[in-house]
């Protein structure tokens, strides 16, 4: 799989560490209840189709990048920013 790093261009998957689907975490100020945390940590729509995910490009720009990828075809789209 070639991962299109927005900073470095297409690079081999071995150059990256996978950080998982983008998770919208509740604020850390104690206002969110257990249910909100459960939804944020354990949910996040994995039924298929293109998902926004984060990758760490350790052998390149050393940045976390957000990309959308189709889990079945591994086709990437650029994430809307």
């Amino acid at each position: 799989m070639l991962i299109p790093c927005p900073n470095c261009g297409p690079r081999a998957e071995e150059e990256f560490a996978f950080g998982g689907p983008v998770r919208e975490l509740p604020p850390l100020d104690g206002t969110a209840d257990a249910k909100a945390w459960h939804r944020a940590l354990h949910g996040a729509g994995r039924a298929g189709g293109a998902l926004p995910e984060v990758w760490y490009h350790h052998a390149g720009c050393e940045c976390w990048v957000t990309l959308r990828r189709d889990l079945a075809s591994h086709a990437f789209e650029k994430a809307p920013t």
Partner: protein
Amino acid sequence: MESREGNRVQYSGAMVIAKALGRNRGWRPIVAAREPNARYDVVVIGGGAHGLAVAHYLAARHGITNVAVLEAGWIGSGNTARNTAIVRSDYLLDASFRLKHFALGLWEGLAQELNFNVMYSPRGYVDLAHSDGELEHMTLRANAMVLRGAEAKVLDRAALQARVPCLELDAPSRYPISGALVQEKGGVVRHDAVAWGFARQASRQGVDIFQNCPVEGFEIAAGRLQAVLTPKGRIACGQAVISVAGQSAVLAGHAGFELPLTPVNVQACVTEPVKPVLDCVINYNAGLSYVSQTDKGEFVLGGATDGYGSQARRGSFARLEDVLARAAQMFPFLSRLRLMRHWSGTADMTMDGNAIIGETPVAGLMINAGWGYAGFKATPAVGWTLAERLATGKSPDLLLPFALERFATGALIDDAGIGPYPWLH
């Protein structure tokens, strides 16, 4: 239309010889082709080893035979036939250990029970430690196992070399080996035979098994399951179980709920056959690479997940290279062998790396999912306990910790202590 009659025959050594002399003509199909009834007491969705085991134990232990198994492809075509066939119970956490240890007991008698040779081979599972700290942790695991009544041994380097003479301990390796945890009752079981054995026995007891029959939707009224929808039409049911491994999230989606899991890809491969040299299953823990040698002489190799979410059933070359490199650290001679076959399966990995078994938000609909790349070893225990849940309406103690609610209540069963990162489990 095939009747079930031919299936009543009892297999035996004499029969195998007689059929061989008759040029193997006259074997009857294991699964009879027929049309589905309008209604079943229980519909099992997914004809993998797990689903077929549920059907068998429903009939054998509870006399419930108005049961249909609906399989999208052919029975055992999913992860059942893709796994590396390893069975063991050397788990640290109580819930994980107990279910798999119960399974290990059932594997021992399964060939007799099913009248089908499933080739359970308790050849020993050797889990390597690569540091003193890791060996201490394995000692903790071994002690926990022994306290719960299982057998386990911790080997130092000398004892390990005696147990596995062909293991390379002294090469200038990146990850030195400091010892191992061994469970001699661990080993391998012939995975296809498990699917066929359960299917045949279920069918003999009156269960209907339909292949090429995917469930495409559910009919739910007032929160209760009414029927499943298939290309063979609407099939009404009292209860149903989703047991579709890599497709779990899709089926849950049809029923209108979400599962806390990510599908990941897991690979395995086999080499050309050579003379016997390795008599156990061995697991390299710095990274992951597990190796065993089949009775035919092939080496079977497997490793970690590809490291990211995937529904592709197409392996990452980087992972394959990694698995082979680690295997060659243990057994340098492997580098001279050619690979014969290589394949992938979609593993349904949950947020704590453990299975989800029991009720769903839809009344009458059960789930058995989230086994990732560790569920084959639990097959008979899943069948036994889930059948009991369906028949009695009460979850046996072995199942209670695996309820779907545990993610909301925080009672996770995270053996590896990794957290909600399925691709790392």
